[in-house]
């Protein structure tokens, strides 16, 4: 019977059925960071358990690292304590740690792919909801809680119930100035923030076939914002070309064998799905959020919703709450809304191609007066790649602060925070209340090029007009 990639990977990694009907699933690759792992190591110590497969866990530090201070001890003693704890745990249990001194540190979801650790046909878990990013490679990747981090450390397995699979097909060519970020914001807006509950999303269609790995990662990254536990793209030649020659990729004869195995995991033609959704790429516009969850999005030329536009009582309550928090005028165009901060970065859009695209348009432009603009590469390697190409200079000359790698203002656990009710044009993935470090701070999510357009005009703008954008 033809099977989907999800079913094949699930079957290959099933250890056994548990008494409650869940599956004990083998987790091939485990990624950890400083925020959600210390308590798990604490639990291991309390139980007197060793790490079962230490060579299959990889660590990095991303959430709390200051992006303007490289030398330890960090000004924030709590951040330093978390750093020390991770270092100690990795040393004690024999886990590879991509520490800052290694030159390979960065946001965990950028480091895995970059190192070739993220591979097709594998299972991946990480105590972080954006683990879905790794699905871009045809892996089934789960964000997990700390008790499950403990489970994976102790047994390299976890207890899970199988997911349903929804195939989301996007076909056709994106219009000029429309990016992968717009595709996922559009999908979430269409299917809702809990539309994916109980599902893994399989992204397919000619639009995805034509996407680079970085574009696929941007989409898979935000699967969780649509409520899906995992999201993936079937592996193809683009995937293999990306992985070839990476530090943890198979080498020599093992490479050909691995590619053959990887291909065998791709969904079979005729596989059945629990649901299928089709979207025409040409209908997707540059999309921005206006509210307090990632599903509250509109095309750049649309107006901010008002209670009159509500489609249900829930929608109405959601609009009232969001407008009150965002302090935006109902029914007015979102275009023209004044911003205070522009943030480029995060595991959604902190990769080389994001900065390349932005630099293309920022060249010779200036950030509007009074706007604080920061650009944070997702990893030290991304930073180096950008610096080699001189992108950092272009971006800095335009008036962005060029920072060191980390999560930074995506969730502001480090010193990069909004102040008061500042409004931030952000390339990150969450616009929840208080997400960017101020309890009244406001976030509008968009593609990196749209962030650049907002930065140079000081307002939410249509990048296609500001930069005369044309794809390629």
């Amino acid at each position, binding site marked *: 019977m033809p099977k989907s990639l999800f079913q094949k990977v699930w079957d290959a990694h099933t250890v056994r059925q548990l008494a*409650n009907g869940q599956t*004990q699933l083998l987790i091939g690759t485990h990624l950890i960071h400083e925020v959600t792992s210390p308590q798990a190591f604490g639990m291991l110590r309390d139980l007197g358990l060793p790490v*079962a497969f230490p060579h299959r866990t990889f660590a990095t530090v991303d959430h709390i690292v200051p992006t303007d201070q490289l030398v330890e001890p960090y000004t924030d003693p709590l951040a330093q304590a*978390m750093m020390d704890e991770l270092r100690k745990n990795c040393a004690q249990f024999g886990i590879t740690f991509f520490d800052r001194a290694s030159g390979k540190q960065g946001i965990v979801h950028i480091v895995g792919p970059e190192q070739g650790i993220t591979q097709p046909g594998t299972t991946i878990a990480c105590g972080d909801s954006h683990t879905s990013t790794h699905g871009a490679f045809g892996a089934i990747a789960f964000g997990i809680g700390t008790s499950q981090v403990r*489970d994976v450390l102790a047994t390299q*397995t*976890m207890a899970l119930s199988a997911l349903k699979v929804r195939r989301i097909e996007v076909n056709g060519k994106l219009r000029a100035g429309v990016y992968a970020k717009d595709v996922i914001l559009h999908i979430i807006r269409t299917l809702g923030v809990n539309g994916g509950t*109980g599902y893994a999303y399989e992204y397919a269609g000619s639009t995805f076939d034509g996407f680079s790995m970085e574009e696929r990662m941007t989409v898979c990254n935000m699967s969780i914002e649509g409520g899906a536990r995992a999201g993936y793209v079937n592996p193809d030649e683009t995937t293999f070309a990306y992985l070839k020659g990476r530090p943890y990729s198979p080498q020599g004869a093992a490479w050909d064998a691995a590619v053959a195995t990887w291909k065998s995991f791709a969904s079979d033609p005729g596989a059945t799905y629990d649901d299928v959704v089709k979207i025409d790429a040409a209908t997707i516009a540059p999309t921005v959020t206006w509210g307090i969850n990632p599903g509250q999005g509109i095309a750049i030329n649309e107006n901010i919703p008002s209670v009159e536009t509500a489609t249900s009582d829930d929608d109405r309550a959601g609009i009232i709450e969001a407008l009150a928090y965002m302090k935006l005028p109902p029914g007015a165009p979102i275009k023209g809304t004044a911003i205070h901060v522009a943030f480029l970065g995060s595991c959604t859009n902190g990769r080389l191609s994001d900065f390349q695209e932005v630099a293309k348009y920022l060249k010779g432009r200036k950030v509007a007066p009074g706007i604080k603009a920061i650009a944070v590469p997702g990893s030290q390697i991304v930073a180096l790649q950008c610096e080699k190409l001189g992108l950092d200079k272009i971006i800095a000359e335009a008036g962005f602060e060029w920072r060191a790698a980390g999560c930074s203002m995506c969730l502001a656990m480090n010193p990069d925070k909004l102040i008061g009710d500042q409004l931030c044009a952000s390339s990150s993935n969450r616009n929840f209340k208080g997400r960017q470090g101020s309890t009244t701070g406001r976030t509008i999510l968009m593609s990196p090029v749209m962030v650049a357009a907002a930065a140079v005009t000081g307002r939410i703008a249509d990048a296609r007009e500001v930069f005369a954008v044309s794809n390629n």
Partner: protein
Amino acid sequence: MALAKITSFTGRAVAVPGNDIDTDRIIPARFMKCVTFDGLGEFLFNDVRKQLDGTLKPHPLNEPRFKGATILLSGANFGCGSSREHAPQAIQKYGFRAVIAEGYAEIFFGNSITLGIPCVTATREDIAKIAAAVEADPTLEVTIDVTKQEVRFGGQTVKGAIRESARDALVNGRWDAIGELIDGLPAAKTTAAKLPYLAA
């Protein structure tokens, strides 16, 4: 590891209404700068409960009449967003033992069950009935019967559904899977040996 069999729970309830209450709201990220979960309870719903200077905002959890409530009532898609276990940990450390909502985000639900927090699903109308009864009498005892999948309060009974795997795990005292997973470690090694990327 012997775990308690969680078949039913009785306590007082408090409603924190709203849909899509995300884990950033349940426990803001800045309180995750910690290496243990101890002390998180104090910061549950911090930014909607307190002003920056620590003074209290109007919020159900700040009302003296709801002090000591151990059952949390909420809306749809509760616990969406980040996978942080800090969220159910904060709920538990604050003193809650069970949640009744219209629905849950996946990761939050799994994390909560692993901590032995029954998260039952009821319809909006039924939650409104419970909330109204509790509003009228905050000392009212609410019983969540996990075995029978119902919620009883003030002489009324409504459905309180819970996914079968979670129900089984709670009532049979296997909500924390670690013991069973360790039993399966030899089998896990066999499975790993069959996968080229793990066998190598």
